């Protein structure tokens, strides 16, 4: 658990850097987290994915997996990896201020 000032707000995040309280999130927070993760600037395509992640989280209680993102977000898996290198689902969730996707067991 770390507490940090991001975009002027005191924000708590877990060991892996995911926001503890998703309601503390806003666009400026997203831009700052993205910058720290080496994504700068956030393009419209990034935002499309980020907003999609937020709405999925709000309706389903967990962020989508990469495959589900590729099928439903309007952005292909290939492009997701270009936008959010390494782990699109994890990285986009982090920037969208939602918990790490539960993924699969």
């Amino acid at each position, binding site marked *: 658990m770390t507490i940090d000032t991001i975009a002027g707000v005191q924000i708590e995040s877990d060991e892996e850097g995911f926001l503890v309280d998703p309601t503390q999130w806003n666009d400026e927070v997203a831009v700052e987290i993205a910058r720290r993760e080496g994504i700068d600037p956030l393009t419209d395509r990034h935002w499309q994915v980020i907003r999609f992640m937020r709405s999925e989280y709000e309706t389903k209680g967990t962020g*989508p997996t990469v*495959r589900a993102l590729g*099928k439903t977000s309007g952005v292909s898996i*290939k492009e997701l*990896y270009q936008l959010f290198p*390494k*782990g699109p689902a994890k990285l986009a969730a982090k920037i969208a201020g939602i918990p790490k996707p539960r993924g*699969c*067991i």
Partner: protein
Amino acid sequence: MHRIVILGGGKGGTLAANRLRKAYGLNEASVTVVDQDDQHIYQPGLLFVPFGLTHSEDIVRPRGRQLHRGIDYRTSAIIHVDLAGQSVQLADGSELSYDVLVVATGAVLAPDETEGLTGPGWMEKVFTFYTPEGAAALEEALAVFDGGRLVVNVVEMPIKCPVAPLEFCFLADWYFHERGIRDRVELTFVTPLDAAFTKPVAANHLGGLLEQRGIELVTEFNTGEVDGTGGRLVSFDGREVPFDLAVVIPLHNGASYVARSEGLGDALGFVVTDTHTLQAAVAPNVFALGDAASLPVSKAGSVTHFEGEVLVENIRRFLDGEPLDASYDGHANCFIKTGFSKAMLIDFNYDVEPLPGHYPGLVGLPLLKESHLNHLGKLMFQWLYWHSLLPGRDIPGISSAMPLGGKLQALESNVKERVS
């Protein structure tokens, strides 16, 4: 008269049908099972086919014979579920009306969704053991493999029995040792996960075993393309793993009719299901169990078995107009074959990590430790599958709720008794 229709006559559909048949008299409820074919495969057996330890024909039985008397069995593919009209359309043109529907059509492999996987080299140097045809073809390929790079690759989760690919690695290590060519084979396990397995405690143990056996582990590899001609796995972020022979576990989806039936499935066609009651989110008279459900549990036969009890109890409650309070806790367990006549057993649920200790009580099988006893367990499991699990019997000492207390009941003696 209640009409209960069960879609899928595999592990889950069969045990649910048999339990429901027992729970209701012939004049109280009709029980109908639909499956697209008449070949019930004991899927855990597929792991052993490539190594010549069993054969496809030995792990297949007719479905109808696994179902108790008084169960109506239909062979036809399922096309669509009309949730509002409470009926199911079958490919043979018929329609089945239901009062309660159980979705148990499992997971379907989707090798076509990975670029190149079914292209040049498929079934020549790129195989899967997740189908009977694939497992048989791989047996032939392994028999003539006399050295080189063998990679085992999980494309993406979820997959059925997430430990099966690891077991395949351990068995391959054993197999090449037996053939005296282990030093000529480079074995590599390539996974999208950040460790050998999903559950951290088990991942450490399994990771250690891989290292011990000289099996290389490549993590966080998201396969974007399988290049059969060039002998390469290529990840979405541009990394490559070369191979001479690839064993690939393809993507899994739910059955396609689930995705076509409005509101029934999630993005991958798995049924959105309450994690505890097994009731589908889409309608109160629809339930799901086994691999078809989108629960945060392993897609495994043990899970399906434990869910069965809860499912049948909640269907009874639903039909009686009572609240559904039977609750599934995510209990899963798994024998892991580690080669050289050894195996280990892991046991966990939604909240509890695989525990070191014994299962189900103090004198059960040692958990998280390789032992010969567990090896016996894995072999005996096939016997239990046909004679105890499918008929819907409980295994004495093992119930759906995960035993944490250490009941003095040993699966070991149970298994020995039944086999002798």
